[in-house]
Every structure is written in C-alpha cells, then in structure tokens.
C-alpha cells in the first residue's frame, strides 16, 4: 500500500477547502491506507483550540481533527514556523500532533508516495 500525505494549507473557515481536505484524510484512513496529515501555512489555524464557528454557521474543524485517532489516524504533523507565525504553541495542539521543522517536513514528504495538497 502506498503511503499518502495530505497537506492542509487553508485557514479553517475561509471557504470549504479545509473541510474537504480533512474529509479526504479521514476517508484514506477509513479505507485502511497508510495516511499522514501535515498542517502548514494558514492551515495550522485548523488546529487552534476552542474554535467557536457556530455564529458563522460552521462546525468546528478542531472537533473533526480531534476525532482522527478514532480512524487510527495519528501520523499528524504541524509546521513549526507556521505555528509560531500564527501564535500557536505546542500546548494548544491535540496531543497526537507532532511539530516538525522544515528539514523534517522534507523527510516526511520523501517517505510518502502521494502528496495531496488542500
């Protein structure tokens, strides 16, 4: 089976692409594919704690991300620089998320046969 890396680049509520990416990641995991997720750029904002998007008629993406271990999806990573740029600390993230520097992200990409970018 070919390992697939899904990269989440979009802020959570600007459009629907962030949600589409997370749904795809959960589908890969549900179909028992070796699946990894990397949050990068404004996409790290999907990991922000205490999201309350109900006033704009949206559902919390953080809640969806918190469910990833239920799909045996725990190879989940976040870009260290992007976290710093967006004011997020490691303690804000779900416990199963690993923070990676740029060199570790290149290594992560090289370990995967497919890279899908959302």
């Amino acid at each position: 089976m070919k390992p697939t890396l899904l990269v989440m680049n979009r802020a959570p509520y600007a459009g629907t692409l962030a949600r589409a990416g997370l749904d795809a990641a959960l589908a890969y995991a549900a179909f028992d594919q070796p699946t990894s997720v990397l949050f990068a750029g404004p996409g790290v904002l999907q990991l922000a704690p205490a999201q309350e998007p109900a006033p704009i008629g949206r559902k919390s993406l953080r809640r969806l991300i918190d469910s990833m271990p239920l799909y045996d999806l725990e190879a989940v990573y976040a870009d260290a620089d992007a976290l710093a740029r967006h004011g997020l600390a490691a303690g804000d993230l779900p416990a199963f998320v690993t923070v990676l520097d740029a060199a570790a992200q290149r290594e992560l990409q090289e370990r995967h046969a497919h890279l899908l970018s959302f």
Partner: protein
Amino acid sequence: MHYALLVLAPPQATAVHRAAIGLCEAALDAGHALPRVFFSDAGTQVALASAVPPGDEPSPREGWQALARQHGVELVACIGSAVRHGVLDSDEAARFERPAATLAEGFVLGGLGLLVEATAAADRTLTFGGGAP
C-alpha cells in the same frame, strides 16, 4: 506510468483547468495510464450542466468532456461536494426534491473511496487548485 488527478479549483480558474487538461492529454498521448480524474470541493462545479460561461472564454467543462470522449477517462465528482454546489444527478435531484438534474454529460458522482482507489492504483498523484503553503 500510472497517474491519478485531484482537481479542486472552480471552473472560473480557467488556467488551472487548462493546465490539468493539457497534462492529461500529454500523459495519455505519451502512452501513460490516467483512468480517472476526481473533482472535489469547488472543482465539482465544472460538472454543472447549467453553468453558462461567456461565449468568448474557454469552457473547462467542455475540455474535460472532450478528454473523456477521446480517451475514455472517467470523470468523478465527489458526491458530498457536488450536491453542496448544486451538481445533482437524477437520483440526488429526486432524493433532495430539487426540480432538475444538473450533472453534465460525461461526469458521474461518487464517494471519496473512488479517490482513494485511484491514488492507490497510481504511481503519481497530482493536485490541481489546492492551497499553496
């Protein structure tokens, strides 16, 4: 080489669709396999039969339909994204009690499992229209 494509850009991003269709034609002409293109999120709007682009602009929908006709490429629009964008086949139009089916000829609706299946069979997967980091 065996390719799979994921298209996320709306049809208004004509340059993205032009590049994606061009890549498919080049790959197929060179003898590579590219059996399925999967459209998700705003990309599903390209399968909307009722959209009318200006007459002097290229129609990404017609470009994809021509690719499917000439090369037998399967065009699958993610069903969850498609219904959100008003792209309904006759089953979905009946299910949601909408006045008409709007899925363009040459496209089918399908679940994310068809994307997983396409990339699992492929050596390379290309995403068109995703967010840049």
